[in-house]
């Protein structure tokens, strides 16, 4: 195309729409894809773990290993997507994004230490240990989504956080092994619903 050719108003608007689409694709349109990755990890991982508790043929550790593998994949994907989108960008939004990422890492390490220590005391039954882990992790997830909602003034993200906290309470109330169902359906389902809403918003051009 020739740079010097005069543009009509319509051509200009088309050009704006074209470049905006390119921006969204390259700079990361929103959290839809990341949420979809986490929905996949939670639904499959916790769903399988619940299924394993219902049959004697699958040893308990298989579910644990599957969840660990799926989480590592989801973390890697999330890191890759945000690093790719943030290439060559400097400024407040990059700082905020990095701090948010580190908040997840720091608080996850802290909670892992606490939960492992309490588990090691051996005073809780294995069913109660399971509730400790599902309750605290859903709570942490919820709180961090509340924080994300505040950071980016995103009501949907805040709502997702609130939902995760409700799920945390629910998971300990229903007890073992239904807590895995809460993790899969309420947790994973929450991520999936969030992913769908963000995806629809992206397609309709809203931010």
């Amino acid at each position, binding site marked *: 195309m020739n740079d*010097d050719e005069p543009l009509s108003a*319509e051509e200009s608007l088309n*050009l704006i729409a074209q470049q905006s689409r*390119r921006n969204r694709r390259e700079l990361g349109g929103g959290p839809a894809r990341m949420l979809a990755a986490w929905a996949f990890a939670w639904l499959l991982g916790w769903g399988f773990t619940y299924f394993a508790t219902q049959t004697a043929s699958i040893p308990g550790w298989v579910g644990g290993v599957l969840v660990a593998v799926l989480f590592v994949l989801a973390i890697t994907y999330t890191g890759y997507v945000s690093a790719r989108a943030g290439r*060559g*960008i400097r400024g407040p*939004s990059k700082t905020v994004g990095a701090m948010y990422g580190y908040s997840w890492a720091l608080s996850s390490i802290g909670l892992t230490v606490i939960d492992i220590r309490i588990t090691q005391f051996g005073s809780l039954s294995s069913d109660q240990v399971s509730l400790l882990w599902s309750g605290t992790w859903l709570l942490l997830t919820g709180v961090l989504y509340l924080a994300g909602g505040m950071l980016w003034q995103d009501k949907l993200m805040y709502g997702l956080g609130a939902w995760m906290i409700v799920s945390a309470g629910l998971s300990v109330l229903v007890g073992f092994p239904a807590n895995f169902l809460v993790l899969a359906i309420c947790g994973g389902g929450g991520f999936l619903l969030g992913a769908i809403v963000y995806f629809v918003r992206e397609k309709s051009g809203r931010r």
Partner: protein
Amino acid sequence: MSELPQLDPVIHAQARLRVTVALAGLHTGDQITFPRLQQLLDMTAGNLSTHLRKLEDAEYVEITKAYEHRTPVTLVRLTAAGRAAFESYTKALHQLLDATGGD
């Protein structure tokens, strides 16, 4: 009938319009490195420099040279004036379309 709005000649050119849209896609206060902007636009370095200079002359764009780990980097951002100019430009486009009955 109101007069037809004038389109800002600084923005109303294919290449500079695309540069402006790309920069307006960043969050307020954020900057982008020259190579990343180039990749976002598929423009040659020379071409992009020329158009950035024109936008800088109009004070729509601010270009900063900095050092990161001893490597020089060129950072670009849309100024508040640039963002406002882009907003009134798109508004003018819509007014023109309404006036000419195109849609």
